[in-house]
């Protein structure tokens, strides 16, 4: 058995050291010890009084260095431990331990969440084995609501809400609004978004992108519902069918009510983007086209569709408004791809972020934010949109903060989490204010008696 090198500098980061061995009766024993590094691959071990050195000589001996930093409020942080499996011998009255293997964990090097993620397969195997032994099936129990939220990635539905709201708000500004149609549109699009999230999870798990990702965050790395065993493939497929069915049902109803060809075309295009976003053979997201698909889907398809079902006409204004909306929603995906990028690359999911250099990724982010705000200003100044949409510029300082945060924490997955959340707040907030700008414009014009367009 080959020995391994000891790094004394590394050991200085630990507070306590102990030794473990199996006594002659076969019982494991752990005792406090003192150690010194005698040579690059040897420890000098001093046992405490009461432990006979003859008990340990010639046996396997584990030396474990341990540290935590207790917190004043209770609990602790900075957990780390390092264990060396050693052969131990007596030499000139001293005990000399030669390590041949080491194991351990340092929270500073592998964050806790990642440490947990690395062992998911062990957990699944263990639960499966216990299930077979006990004639039962073990799955993490989160409760029906939490499981549903996790499987569907429900909070991300805000993106759909903003897109529908944007299209309907433009219609509202032009004097068209049917509450029932609006509600049906919202439910139909939300169901489509849920189906999209689940299809995405199914294929990203099957194609390996989510499986390889050992540093997921609340915003990236997928729902992991299949990976954690929260749902079976069969049940996930059923849920996809149910939510797709809801969308198709509502789509068919709206098509009959408002225009068969127009609505059917938009629904067909929407489903093409939803399914082939990750599904083979097209796999848009794996070819650097996922971002465009999201911008197109959440921009023109939903915004124009939501406008059309209210007005039964196509017009330039919703098309123009759909561009900043699509860009904003696309930016959610784009920034969330940053922490995923090493794992996406390993799974040949060649997203834009995977394809571009870090500097280019950030330049594009800046450019897309600037384009979004620039378009909003241009629409207001050229009389395309009411001046109230300029309220969306209120988020510019926040955008600058989020941008800086993303830039500084690039390649630091867990430090980036607040900025991933910030980017979602920014894009959803800006989209919401843009829609709000349209919603308040008409009542304000009536109230003030002047048009709010230049």
């Amino acid at each position, binding site marked *: 058995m080959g020995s391994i090198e000891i790094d004394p500098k590394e050991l200085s980061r630990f507070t306590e050291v102990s030794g473990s061995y199996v006594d002659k009766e076969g019982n494991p024993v752990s005792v406090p010890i003192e150690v010194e590094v005698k040579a690059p691959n040897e420890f000098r071990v001093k046992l405490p009084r009461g432990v006979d050195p003859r008990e340990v000589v010639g046996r396997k001996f584990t030396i474990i260095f341990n540290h935590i930093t207790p917190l004043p409020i209770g609990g*602790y942080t900075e957990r780390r431990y390092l264990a060396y499996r050693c052969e131990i011998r007596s030499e000139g009255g001293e005990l000399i331990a030669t390590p041949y293997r080491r194991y351990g964990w340092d929270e500073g090097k592998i964050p806790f969440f990642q440490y947990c993620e690395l062992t998911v397969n062990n957990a699944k195997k263990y639960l499966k084995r216990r299930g077979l032994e006990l004639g039962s099936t073990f799955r993490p129990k989160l409760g029906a609501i939490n499981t549903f939220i996790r499987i569907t990635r429900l909070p991300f539905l805000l993106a759909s809400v903003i897109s529908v709201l944007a299209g309907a708000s433009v219609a509202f500004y032009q004097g068209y609004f049917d509450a029932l149609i609006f509600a049906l549109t919202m439910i139909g699009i939300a169901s489509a978004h849920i189906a999209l999230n689940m299809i995405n999870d199914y294929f990203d798990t099957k194609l390996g992108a989510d499986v390889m990702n050992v540093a997921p965050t609340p915003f990236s790395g997928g729902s992991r519902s299949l990976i954690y065993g929260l749902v079976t493939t069969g049940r996930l497929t059923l849920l996809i069918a149910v939510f797709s069915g809801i969308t198709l049902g509502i789509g068919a109803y709206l098509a009959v009510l408002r225009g068969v060809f127009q609505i059917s075309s938009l629904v067909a295009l929407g489903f093409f983007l939803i399914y082939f976003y990750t599904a083979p053979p097209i796999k848009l997201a794996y070819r650097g086209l996922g971002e465009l698909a999201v911008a197109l889907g959440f921009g023109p398809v939903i915004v124009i569709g939501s406008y059309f079902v209210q007005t039964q006409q196509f017009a330039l204004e919703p098309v123009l408004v759909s561009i900043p909306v699509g860009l904003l929603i696309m930016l959610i995906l784009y920034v969330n791809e940053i922490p995923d990028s090493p794992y996406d690359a390993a799974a040949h999911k060649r997203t834009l972020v995977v394809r571009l250099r870090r500097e280019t990724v950030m330049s594009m982010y800046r450019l897309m934010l600037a384009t979004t705000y620039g378009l909003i200003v241009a629409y207001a100044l050229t009389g395309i949109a009411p001046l109230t949409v300029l309220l969306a510029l209120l988020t510019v300082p926040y955008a600058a903060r989020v941008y800086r945060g993303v830039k500084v924490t690039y390649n630091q997955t867990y430090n980036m989490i607040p900025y991933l959340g910030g980017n979602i707040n920014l894009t959803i907030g800006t989209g919401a204010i843009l829609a709000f700008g349209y919603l308040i414009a008409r009542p304000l014009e009536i109230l003030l008696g002047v048009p709010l367009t230049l």
Partner: protein
Amino acid sequence: MPHFKEQTELMDEVEEVMRQSLVCILTFTNEKGEPVSHPMLPLYDKELKRLYFTSSVLFSKKLEDIKRNGNVSVLFQGRSFVKAEKYHAVTLKGSARVEDEEFSERWMRLLPLWREKEPYIDAYLKRRVALPLFWERAVIEITPREYVVWVDGDLSRPPVTIRVS
């Protein structure tokens, strides 16, 4: 020995050390018979006179090792890790039993003991959805057989051995 105490008094202090320790070293044997050690959060129940650990299924290897051989040892060591007034270094030798017939709720009976050590644990538990498998946990129950106590943590003096009847 001048520092030798009545065993009952010492045993009370040992129990306090176990109750107030933030971390301990659990040692068991693997399938090759080698000693394997891991730092763990000890949960000592003074009424039942049992030491408990909860172990996530994410770190289930130890559960299988302990089920194979229930003889374990637990070391309480490190003055800064023990909030008790009196500090002793303690090696507990005992028998472990793994409860892994259910993983979602049974371990939660130990939450009051856990909360004493990590008051913020409820906040994490509320966000169970973030780490579903981490909160699927087995319980390791240890019945102490013997304590070896280095009084005041002084390793240069012979330890006191307390056998549990």
